[in-house]
């Protein structure tokens, strides 16, 4: 393996997570908090950290059905995240609108606006399901480094 490939393998062990709440009911955000914080579903084993700034992020977790109010702000924040990055849609709301599917106020599915890579269905998804989605995202991110 070349030195660059080895360095990329090393770099792939430190994916930092950033959450964008695009109009979510906070159910999925609570599950995201438990995935990181509580000892039972520790996500720091995989090297993940929740960062406070989009500039530090590698894996973006988007929750919520992207209400019309938040569309512009979410697109601006998403543009601030440096490449390479991977996008994970957490919950059924970003994938299809979920329970808000027929609402006039939402812009789901969000893959019209953001390049989503991994979907994690569930309302809300269990923390192990979110960790599974993050593990898939880390595999994709390694390819993009």
């Amino acid at each position, binding site marked *: 393996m070349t030195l660059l490939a080895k360095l990329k393998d090393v770099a792939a062990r430190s994916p930092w997570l950033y959450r964008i709440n695009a109009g979510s009911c906070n159910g999925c955000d609570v599950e995201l908090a438990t995935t990181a914080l509580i*000892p*039972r*579903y*520790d996500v720091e*084993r*995989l090297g993940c950290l929740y960062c406070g700034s989009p500039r530090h992020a590698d894996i973006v977790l988007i929750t919520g059905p992207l209400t019309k109010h938040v569309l512009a702000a979410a697109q601006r924040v998403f543009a601030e995240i440096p490449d390479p990055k991977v996008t994970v849609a957490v919950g*059924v709301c970003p*994938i*299809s*609108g*979920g*329970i808000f*599917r*027929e609402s006039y106020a939402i812009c789901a599915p969000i*893959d019209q606006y953001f390049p*989503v*890579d*991994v*979907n*994690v*269905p*569930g*309302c809300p*998804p*269990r923390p*192990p*399901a*979110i*960790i*599974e*989605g993050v*593990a*898939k995202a880390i595999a*994709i991110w390694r390819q993009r480094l």
Partner: protein
Amino acid sequence: MNFLTLFARNLRLGPYTEPFPLGPATPAPKRLRARIEFDAKSCEGCLLCEKLCPSGAIRFARTPAGLAFDCFHSTCVFCGTCAFYCPTGAIRQTTDWSLAHLEGETFALAEHGLIPPIVCAECGGKGLDTAPNVAKVRPPLSDEEYSALRARCPKCRNKFLRSRGKTP
């Protein structure tokens, strides 16, 4: 417990993190509401689940091949209303939570079912191979009566049950 005793306890007992994804996942709780499963053989064709689904994940379609059932897991919110109201238990919730997938597979993650058409054994008309709802029939149906009922169209099913004496 103050934080020093908590530290001592955590250091003594070691971490209690679940090994997933670096190991097998612990079994899900028995009553976990997760992915649904559809059994076409037990479906009555009442379409209650389609009416009640809050996110519109369940769709039935009348096709030449029969009554088609589709449920997209990426729209299902796992509420369990369909399973609660299904009269025959054809649609159930399993404990399978492991549904994370890549973006391209979104529409592949669906549950499909088909209730084939039949030709009525009595009048020769069109019918569907739906399971009759016989929970409240008295006296209970025998197996041959059940198969006879299943092979008939809805009108002839009613005639058959009335001719037995007690109405369902």
